[in-house]
């Protein structure tokens, strides 16, 4: 299912399923342990040695830090832990490849756009079946779209059908179906969109749900239906065997999967509190652990029963400037501050090297990453001082802090939320660094998340620390357009808006990803020059698993997100 997650603890979620940049600004953004790319290659499980031929059987145990909410339907779930079992039980039409492009066929055999790029024709494979044996047809896909567009749908995925013609009318209750959807035959459907866009595919809902199971129900009833809470019927390599609310979920092999059947008999997801999860992993009580803190990396690495991998996460931390404050409107000041913060030291010290310094909105793993900006703004306190001096910021009264060009004392306040230990530690470091270039920065009391983001939205802070978690599609709208609610710095720039729109809507960008990349390159350079943020760092996503599980693929989305070829996992007979 291609959808975003409301993430509770993680900062990021690479993954095909995560279309949106969702940030639960809640713990998530925050607690996010994520960042820089170290290992982007798919790698077989185990380290090095040849594991032999896959055999069937065995059970893998996964952990969740809190209980799933029990809404096991891709259209309705909101919780991070509801989606984990859904990854393996519901198939998408298509999946991302290792270059973050949607090219791998899932339930769709092939798909093509019309010449004007406004109509998409999707051909479903004919041999896929629901877990109850019914064939999967385009009716199931249309049903999913119409459920989301239904006026009674209260979930958060409306934006994933919104671009289809007629979605707005249906959502407003003016139409009973989507006018832009045309069923050609049981396995072919034509969808027309309001306008052509480069990220149509990435933003289109792509997970069918079984129409025959939910037939006749209104979305409000669907959320509560037994088919959602007790016995979901899916399409993936695994099917639901048992759901014990608030405790665990047991999946078993789907013997009628259209692809190669899974080797494992069962996958169990159980709740293990975060405090004991590492111990449980080392002890073999659970087989996989994600969201591992950088401090744990070395000690886990020493455990020879475990494979530990890291990859750059699609999330980053930044320090925002509130541009509605007059004193922050000078771009020279913002650039000087960027030169004056030792971000490399943050990555080495606070992240123990498990991350990268960032100079742009695009993560390194993305095809839209701008190589040119790799080393923009190296740590250079002398240069920072020089820029300040040239812009008229000088220490005239001898208190070691510069005054603004009018000669008034300049004091800035840095605010940050609680919840992400690394970020909390970075705040005083920033204050110290800026002191070295003569800036007087006061550290605000850390604020609780909800409080913090409310104030950020109201543009009450001066400097603030926050983070974003991104989707594979690089479109930065939502947080970077002048009018966006989450444009926290309130950075208004016509050129930027124009580029963002052009990268998605222009014909050249739609037809050629290289062209789209060039537009983003221009955009990232503009952002870098204007410096409405100081991009701080991107933390690696660290995951570990027990070596008894073989055939694990680890790439930019980690090991367990998406279905990520879970059907290839296997356990040698003697370790089952």
């Amino acid at each position, binding site marked *: 299912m291609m959808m975003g997650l409301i993430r509770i603890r993680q900062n990021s979620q690479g993954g095909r399923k995560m279309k949106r940049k969702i940030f639960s600004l809640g713990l998530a953004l925050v607690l996010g342990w994520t960042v820089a790319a170290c290992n982007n290659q798919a790698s077989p499980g185990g380290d090095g040695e040849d594991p032999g031929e896959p055999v069937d059987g065995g059970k893998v145990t996964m952990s969740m830090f809190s*209980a799933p909410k029990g809404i096991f339907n891709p259209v309705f779930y909101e919780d991070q832990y509801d989606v984990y079992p859904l990854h393996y039980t519901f198939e998408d039409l298509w999946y991302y490849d290792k270059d973050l492009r949607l090219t791998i066929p899932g339930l769709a055999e092939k798909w093509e756009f019309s010449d004007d790029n406004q109509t998409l024709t999707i051909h479903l494979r004919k041999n896929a079946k629901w877990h109850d044996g019914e064939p999967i047809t385009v009716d199931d896909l249309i049903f999913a779209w119409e459920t989301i567009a239904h006026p009674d749908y209260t979930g958060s995925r409306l934006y994933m059908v919104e671009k289809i013609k007629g979605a707005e009318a249906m959502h407003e209750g003016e139409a009973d179906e989507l006018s832009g959807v045309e069923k050609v035959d049981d396995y072919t459907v034509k969808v027309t969109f309001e306008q052509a866009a480069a990220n149509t595919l990435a933003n289109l809902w792509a997970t069918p749900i079984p129409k025959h199971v939910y037939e006749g129900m209104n979305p409000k009833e669907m959320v509560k239906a037994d088919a959602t809470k007790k016995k979901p019927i899916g399409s993936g390599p695994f099917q639901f065997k048992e759901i014990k609310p608030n405790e665990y979920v047991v999946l078993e092999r789907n013997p009628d999967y259209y692809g190669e059947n899974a080797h494992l008999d069962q996958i169990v997801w159980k709740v293990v*509190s975060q405090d004991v999860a590492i111990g449980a992993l080392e002890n073999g009580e659970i087989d996989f652990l994600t969201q591992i803190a950088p401090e744990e990396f070395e000690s886990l690495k020493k455990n020879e029963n475990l494979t530990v991998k890291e990859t750059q996460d699609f999330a980053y931390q930044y320090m925002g400037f509130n541009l509605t404050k007059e004193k922050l409107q000078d771009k020279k000041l913002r650039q000087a501050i960027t030169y004056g913060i030792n971000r490399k030291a943050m990555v080495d010290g606070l992240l123990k090297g498990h991350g990268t310094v960032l100079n742009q909105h695009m993560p390194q793993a993305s095809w839209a990453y701008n190589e040119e900006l790799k080393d923009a703004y190296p740590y250079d306190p002398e240069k920072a001082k020089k820029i300040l001096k040239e812009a008229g910021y000088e220490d005239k009264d001898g208190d070691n802090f510069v005054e603004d060009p009018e000669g008034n004392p300049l004091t800035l306040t840095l605010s940050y939320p609680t919840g992400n230990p690394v970020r909390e530690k970075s705040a005083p470091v920033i204050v110290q660094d800026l002191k070295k270039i003569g800036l007087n920065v006061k550290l605000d009391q850390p604020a609780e998340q909800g409080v913090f983001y409310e104030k950020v939205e109201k543009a009450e802070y001066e400097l603030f620390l926050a983070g974003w978690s991104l989707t594979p599609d690089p479109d930065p709208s939502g947080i970077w357009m002048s009018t966006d609610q989450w444009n926290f710095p309130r950075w208004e720039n016509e050129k930027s808006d124009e580029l963002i729109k052009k990268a998605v809507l222009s014909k050249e960008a739609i037809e050629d990803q290289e062209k789209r990349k060039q537009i983003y390159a221009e955009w990232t350079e503009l952002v870098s020059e204007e410096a409405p943020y100081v991009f701080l760092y991107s933390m690696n996503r660290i995951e570990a698993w027990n070596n008894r599980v073989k055939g694990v693929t680890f790439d930019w989305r980690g090991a367990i997100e998406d279905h990520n070829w879970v059907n290839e996992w296997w356990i040698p007979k003697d370790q089952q």
Partner: protein
Amino acid sequence: MYQYILRRVLIFIPMLFLISVLLFTLVQLAPGDAFTGQLDPNQDARYYEEMRERFGLDKSPVEQYLMWGKNFLQGELGISFRHKLPVSELIGDRIGNTIFLGICAYILTYTLAIPLGIFSAQRPYSKWDYTLTGAAFVGISMPSFFAGLLLIFLFSFTLDWFPFSGTVTAGAGLGGMEAFIDKLHHVILPAITLSIINIAQYTRFTRSSVLAAKQQDFVRTAYAKGVPASVVLRKHVLRNALLPLVTLFGLDMGILLSGAVITETIFSWPGIGQLLVEAIINRDYPIMMAVTMLASFFVLLGNLVADILYAVVDPRIRYE
């Protein structure tokens, strides 16, 4: 007596009302709401407005309170923002686990603390007494999250005797007696964690109470009459010494319910304590209100039960 109980129960009403006002105010005073923390740039701001409207968050605090109060009186605890389910259902699903854990903790507390306390009091200032006193102080000073982790480390990770998460073995598909034993197996560590402080306190309490009773004149008289020591202990000493413990039993009711918050979180025990922690993190105020109201009710009820039990066991006390 009945009049007294009736009067006390009636007092619950204004008290619960005041508690609810206070809780509601506290919740409202905190800036932000359940939706502030869920930003998603792909999502229209309209969605959040729609959600706030749907859950009545756009109304004034007074209106919101009245709405909540009206529903509460009709037995409707509201719909959780996060779970999108009736709060009564969420609590209903979990309260059984919390009560089960509470009862096990009670049983552990009384079966261990009273005998240990008596044992200690029988040999005051001996090596044994000092050892138990020392242990009790360790128990009292140990925060439950630490105790929980320590127990998990020792008995789950090192010795592998007990499981450390959940109430049953995942996917074992046990039935009948086996299922019950499995459940007992799971409850042991959390129950010990939850009761450790009480065991320690009650041991000390029993010890000093028994010691004090032993010095009473009637005890000396009993010995003088030639009553056997065991009978003196049972009939004269314990009957008097253990009276105050009965009170504690009542007072603990509310505390066990709310005190399970940390224990349930560490052991992933799906009870209402864990539900509350999650609700607080997510600012899911219908759950916060309902669970805290429930806990307040139990504290009040516990106090009442304590008073009544006191009158029942101590003929000197009469309520009018």
